[in-house]
């Protein structure tokens, strides 16, 4: 019997597949590439492992030893953390950069808030243990991903259940599930976060699509973010999906400023071989609307403007390229004339030059010809305190306070809880809603300022979710003023088909708070105590010592001292 290399490979592959299907684990990987209209390229890697038939651990059984879990493809480190803290659904994103909704459209992964964002749905237990498990979970994830997720303590944790609905199903345990959400906008993302991320994949970065994840290129992108999403699908099992999203700029990489790109030019790598344990391994390219490009090699399949390349183990290395041969150097579109690619555009600012109070403004522009209802979520740490009674809404200069409906508000507690504001905004067609609110900047203790205190504090992004399109009363949802043209009609038809609400994140803001003089604690204590002691001592002196009248005249026979009856 000869054990040639190919026989050994086939034997191992068969063994893996048998093992995987016996356990009920399925691994699928996918890369989606989308050329954007400003010459950039959006790439989204998605690695999904499904543990068939599994259910999340019941937190009521946390005191009992867990049943043995055998994972082949499912990441063990992450699985252990999920079962240790009895987590049903988890979403962790680590992003860097500002997602430009107007020019890049909606991202493939909705969680694009800058910095670290962690939200989990966990079931409660009978003396409530959610907060304790949340803390344990944060620290475990911080250790796993080398990110300072331990800073997401109760100064940053809220529970905005209206905006962050569970994406999977929640099993029916004794007590209901609770949401914990926290953001750390100042968290940086770098290779040390990517390395443990890759370790969670079955094939690591050795084969399959993950071999394209070259940190030198990924962290050079205009926008990049990695995400870990765990959810429970009732009919399937527990699914872990690792995602990496990035926006590259081929124009910047090319020496003659052309927007031609290929996997080699963008990632500096190609897909050498497929991951043997992946059930499906595909690359999808969203084809641009104009036809002046050339794509090579030929795709396996083209459906509905999306070209699909299936990666087979036998073929040679895959290097997809897209070129515009007729074009010279890329010419950028005039951004002021280009229509926005999303239904609404959001901008948030902090106005005011003082360090005692400021004004928060939010501008939401409705780009559709129909009325849109959007949910607005602000979870603001106590570093900015809202004066909710000064919240005003204007459309075109006219006050329209009726367009803002506050659903819930929990005020901030200094040195602990953040503020949570959830409101519903009603946006008239083709109009911009301006919200303004006075805010006050608190004064922190000496020990609460970070080492670089003059930089200021990063404030987490606001989340706007357009969830209702069109006036619920009219079935067509047409604008009153203009007859709908052909493209508008198709737009309205698509909208009326019930689009899934998608979260939009505003950029983070920086607030600079007044700092005390950090060199002065001793001096302040001694000066204040000196003043207090001086006054106290003088008062004590005056109140306790008797007054006597003494004669200072040196004539000896008139020497007399009179006591005063005090």
């Amino acid at each position, binding site marked *: 019997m000869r054990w040639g290399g190919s026989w050994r490979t086939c034997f191992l592959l068969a063994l893996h597949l048998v093992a995987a299907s016996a356990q009920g684990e399925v691994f699928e990987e996918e890369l989606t590439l989308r050329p954007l209209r400003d010459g950039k390229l959006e790439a989204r890697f998605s690695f999904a492992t499904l543990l068939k038939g599994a259910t999340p651990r019941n937190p009521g059984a946390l005191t009992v030893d867990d049943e043995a879990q055998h994972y082949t493809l499912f990441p063990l480190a992450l699985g252990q953390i999920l079962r240790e803290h009895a987590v049903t659904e988890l979403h962790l994103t680590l992003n860097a950069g500002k997602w430009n909704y107007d020019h890049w459209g909606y991202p493939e992964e909705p969680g694009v808030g800058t910095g670290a964002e962690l939200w989990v749905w966990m079931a409660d237990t009978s003396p409530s243990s959610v907060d304790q498990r949340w803390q344990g979970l944060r620290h475990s994830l911080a250790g796993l991903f080398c990110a300072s997720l331990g800073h997401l303590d109760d100064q940053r944790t809220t529970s905005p259940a209206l905006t962050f609905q569970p994406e999977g199903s929640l099993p029916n345990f004794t007590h209901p599930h609770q949401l914990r959400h926290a953001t750390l906008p100042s968290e940086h993302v770098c290779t040390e976060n990517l390395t443990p991320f890759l370790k969670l994949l079955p094939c690591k970065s050795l084969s399959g699509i993950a071999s394209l994840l070259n940190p030198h290129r990924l962290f050079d992108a205009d926008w990049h973010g990695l995400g870990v999403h765990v959810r429970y699908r009732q009919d399937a099992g527990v699914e872990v999906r690792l995602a990496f999203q990035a926006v590259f700029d081929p124009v910047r990489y090319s020496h003659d400023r052309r927007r031609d790109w290929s996997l080699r030019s963008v990632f500096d790598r190609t897909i050498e071989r497929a991951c043997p344990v992946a059930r499906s391994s595909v690359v999808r390219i969203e084809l641009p609307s104009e036809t002046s490009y050339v794509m090579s090699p030929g795709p396996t399949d083209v459906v509905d403007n999306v070209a699909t390349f299936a990666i087979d183990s036998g073929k040679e290395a895959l290097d997809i390229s897209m070129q515009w041969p007729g074009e010279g150097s890329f010419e950028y579109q005039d951004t002021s004339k280009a229509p926005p690619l999303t239904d609404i555009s959001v901008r948030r600012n902090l106005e005011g030059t003082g360090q005692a*109070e400021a004004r928060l403004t939010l501008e939401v522009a409705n780009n559709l010809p129909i009325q849109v209802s959007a949910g607005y979520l602000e979870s603001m740490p106590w570093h900015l305190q809202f004066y909710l009674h000064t919240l005003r809404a204007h459309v075109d200069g006219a006050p329209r306070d009726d367009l803002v409906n506050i659903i819930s508000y929990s*005020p901030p507690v200094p040195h602990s809880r953040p503020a949570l504001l959830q409101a519903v905004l009603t946006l008239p067609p083709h109009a911009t809603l301006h919200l303004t609110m006075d805010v*006050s900047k608190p004064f922190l*203790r000496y020990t609460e300022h970070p080492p670089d205190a003059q930089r200021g504090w990063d404030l987490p992004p606001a989340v706007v979710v357009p969830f209702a399109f069109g006036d619920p009363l009219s079935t067509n949802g047409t604008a009153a003023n203009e007859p709908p043209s052909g493209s508008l009609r198709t737009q309205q038809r698509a909208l009326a088909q019930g689009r899934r609400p998608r979260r939009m994140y505003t950029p983070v803001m920086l607030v600079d708070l007044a700092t005390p003089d950090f060199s002065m604690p001793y001096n302040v204590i001694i000066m*204040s105590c000196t*003043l207090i002691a001086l*006054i106290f001592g003088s008062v004590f002196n005056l109140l306790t010592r008797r*007054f006597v009248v*003494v004669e200072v005249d040196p004539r000896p026979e008139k020497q007399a001292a009179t006591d005063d009856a*005090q």
Partner: protein
Amino acid sequence: MDSDPDFAFPALVAARLLLAFAPLPDALKYDQQLSSPLTSYSRLREGIYLFQHGIDPYSGGSFRHSPLLLSLFSTVLPLTPYTSALLWTAADAVAAWALVRIWRLRTGAKKTSRDRQIAALYLLNPYIFLPSLALSTSSLENMLCLLAIMFACRGRASASLLALAALLQLSLPSILLLAPVLLLNITRPVSRLALPQPLDAPLKQAVPLLAEFLGYTVLLTFASTLVCGNWAWVEKTWGASLTLPDLTPNPGLWWYFFTEMFDHFRPFFLMVFSVHLLIYVAPMCIKFQHDFLYAAFLLLGVLAVFKPYPTLSDPGLFLTMFSIFPEIYPYLRHPIVTALIHLHASLLLPLFNSLWLRQGTGNANFFYASTLVFGMGNGAALLDAIWAGLRIAIGELKDGFEIAQE
């Protein structure tokens, strides 16, 4: 009410009312000298707004007013720009009237020539009318304080103790005034600084009054709890004076001290500063047992310097009350120095605050230094008042004799 056919008082009140309706006060609302986190008008409006929308205003940390104010302004007296200007002007007018009544009771005359001056001094003192224009609730506290003292001077114990209990609900440090006001109820307010005698009224008479005061306090506390539905308000209102959670700058001495304090020492120094306020009560009352009005006046001075969250109203009240003790004027040792220090500090406080927070060209030390100077000015006024109050008992000295302390 003995109304005075003189037109000066109504004229002053009308002038204040006009000033209250002027557009200027909008800029004063956020000024840190005029309102503290416990008295700020915008926080009051925020609390009322949350209360009316079903959110507990005491669940968060920015509303620190008493629940009685919450219920008053959300039911009986809604706060609009017109009603608030009227209310605050009325509070100032009532306080000025109470001060004039105290003066009249002290001199025993029905009408004197100084009445107009005293009313004008209260209504036109910038330390008092600026916080009132900024709609800081410290004006209401001043009104209750003067009403409590006035009713005590008249011997109307119940009214006096009720006003004092209401004042305690608004501001915890006012507990210092309990002893002198209680004892003022059983003695006469006539000036006896020049002829000190031991306490002539039996102390036993004060015990039922103390019980009455405690009864009023308990009643108002339970009323506040009914308004809120829980006891969270205690920690946020009274607890704020004891634990200093909000470090917003003000003209007092506590905020920067506790900003720069390390966490390990914070509880100890909070305890020291709070107990320090209490140790002035007994000595002042014992030393001035012949004139409890003067003891109350001196304790107001102590509050002005050492209160946790002062505004300009507190030293304003103290300085204005100098006007009802003209007998001590010849015996003040350094009135001009005190006045100049006050002038110095009162000009520098807003300037340095603005340089630090609005223009960004100064830092916190500038404002802190001006609060130290302000504290010195108030301390100098307090010390001068104590000295003069004691010195007056000795009277004129012949040539060749000097006062000394042993």
